[in-house]
């Protein structure tokens, strides 16, 4: 079912600010990636910011989250540190995973971001297990799991969702359906006419969906889902359609290589979620163009500082490769 009624007033300015921040950050990575200093794969969410921004604001600070390979914006929206994220991508000791993880393996437990990993669907059961523990601790916290449309093709997705349903666990599953897995369209991966949220309904989990480029809708849907989870109704699943602008992995545009059309891209680009929302709030008078200009300037400064931090941080010693394998004793 699609949530249309306004249940909760979205924090409009914060939404816009968060979207602008995520966009600015990811675009800066794209711009500077060719310098060859970020020596790890990067999966950018440019075009998909509305989901991260709105879900990030809908979650409580005490809620937990996990994610997959395309996690920068989930990490930031959950409250993760931009300089430490960037330092991680640069392979620096100050990185959020101290250089061990790189762009695909992020953590910041201080803000409830419990980890992102690079195996498709690999953290879906992990997030479900967070939910198991939360339910046993009787807190009102929720565990949120971010993943893409391909992750629902992995068996562990079903196994995890089934278990969450059996035990009515406080887990929010957030599926960002951007229609592609690397270069593969949904058509070769899922049956014709499949609606992911309908399929999940069939598993016995409350499932909602909507336009993932409408931050207010995402916000309302997510708040609604979170309310029902916190009230003890068990897990919920939200599917948001959106679109990735750049290549699956890396900084470039790749509509020319043939797996999708330039026209398709341009259609989505024309309805860009960040620009559209900015216009909307300006039109509504919720923000002034001056306020937006200030916001942008602040964000640009934050991003520049994060890059400066990452660039100026030291690399780990080669010897650090040999620590932190085991807990206890000397860590090795």
């Amino acid at each position: 079912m699609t949530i249309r009624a306004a249940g909760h007033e979205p924090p409009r300015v914060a939404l816009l600010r968060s979207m602008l921040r995520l966009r600015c950050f990811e675009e800066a990575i794209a711009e500077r990636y060719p310098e060859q200093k970020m020596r790890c794969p990067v999966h950018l969410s440019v075009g998909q910011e509305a989901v991260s921004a709105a879900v990030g604001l809908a979650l409580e600070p005490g809620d937990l989250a996990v994610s997959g390979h395309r996690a920068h914006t989930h990490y930031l929206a959950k409250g993760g540190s931009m300089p430490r994220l960037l330092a991680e991508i640069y392979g620096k000791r100050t990185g959020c995973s101290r250089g061990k993880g790189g762009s695909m393996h992020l953590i910041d437990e201080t803000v409830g971001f419990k980890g992102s990993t690079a195996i498709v669907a690999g953290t879906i059961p992990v997030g479900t297990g967070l939910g198991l523990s939360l339910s046993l601790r009787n807190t009102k916290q929720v565990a949120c799991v971010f993943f893409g449309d391909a992750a629902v093709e992995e068996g562990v997705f079903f196994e995890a969702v089934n278990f969450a349903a059996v035990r009515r666990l406080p887990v929010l599953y957030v599926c960002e359906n951007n229609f592609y897995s690397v270069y593969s369209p949904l058509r070769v991966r899922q049956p014709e006419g499949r609606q992911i949220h309908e399929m999940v309904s069939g598993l016995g989990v409350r499932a909602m969906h909507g336009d993932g480029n409408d931050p207010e809708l995402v916000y309302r849907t997510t708040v609604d889902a979170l309310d029902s989870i916190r009230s003890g109704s068990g897990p919920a699943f939200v599917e948001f359609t959106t679109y990735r602008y750049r290549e699956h992995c890396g900084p470039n545009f790749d509509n020319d290589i043939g797996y999708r059309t330039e026209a398709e891209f341009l259609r989505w680009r024309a309805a860009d979620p960040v620009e559209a929302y900015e216009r909307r709030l300006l039109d509504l008078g919720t923000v002034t163009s001056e306020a937006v200009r200030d916001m942008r300037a602040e964000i640009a400064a934050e991003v520049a500082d994060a890059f400066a931090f990452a660039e100026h941080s030291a690399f780990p010693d080669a010897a650090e490769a040999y620590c932190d394998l085991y807990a206890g004793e000397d860590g090795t």
Partner: protein
Amino acid sequence: MSRVRTYAEAIAEATAIAMEIDERVLCFGLGVDDPKRVFGTTAGLLERFGPARVFDMPTSEAGMTGVAIGASLDGARCLMTHQRLDFFLLALDQIVNNAAKWRYMFGGQSTPVRLVVRLILGRGWGQGPTHSQNLQSWFAHIPGLKVVMPASPADAKGLLLSALFDDNPVLYLEHRWLHQMQGDVPEGDYRVPIGKANRVADGDDLTIVTMSSMTLEALHALPCLRKAGLSADVIDLRTVRPLDWETVLGSIRKTGRLLAVDTASPTCSVAAEIVATAASECFDRLKAPPRRLAMPDFPVPTSPALTANFYPRAEHIAAAAASMLGRTIDVEDIVASRTSPHDVPGEWFKGPF
């Protein structure tokens, strides 16, 4: 104080003690709360700790391993049980890509993955190719995992308690044929340190390195060797990762001869690792080619007619040890002393599982 307990009882006792000490210990897996209580190894837990902490699960080995990892990241200590190791093949992505690497890949900054996976090693009574696998070398190959293989009721208890209070993922491989074995088991919160081997017999002529049920087979081989005037150090590894090289290599340096016995297929096995390390580290002290004794490099067939001499037993160990000392010995005593068919652990076993 020690009391006599079975290996299965020792497992249940260790679990209960851990659950008593730390209310965040959870125990789950197919059958942990069912009438048979996983061969008795989870007896009494449901009654004592209730269904919130002791529970059955869907037949979803992969997903539930991830669930255990996730619960541990929120502070739980998870003990997960599989009635056969073979079923756990479905969950290797979660254990290797997540559990083993979680701490390392996040730079040591995560909540520890406190997860113990109990894997029962099947054998006999036609368990056959998909119910009898021994994959300890797979786990030992993976940095980030710890792997224990208790051989006695006391170790079953002590290693399980250590595993449950370790801050790393631990695979606990228990042998179906040991469940009914009796032995002294110390009371209370008894722990056997992970990573320490156990010299279960002292001798001078050779070192026999064993694990799990092979420790018993080696001990059964000793009288026969003794008769021939031969004595052996028997080193029960207890833990196959991290391996107690000090004890193992110390013994090999003393005796100059190594027979590494394994419950698994030979190629790239733990026994291979021991022979290789001994050859590299004790080269000058070796008096004879180091040798391993393992399962044939074949899957396990089902018919009792095909398994008769398939698993290494005491007589094979005795014969191999003697031959390393240039002797041939009579192992008929060992064979003759056996009262139950070769495909069951004892007269008490009447099938079907």
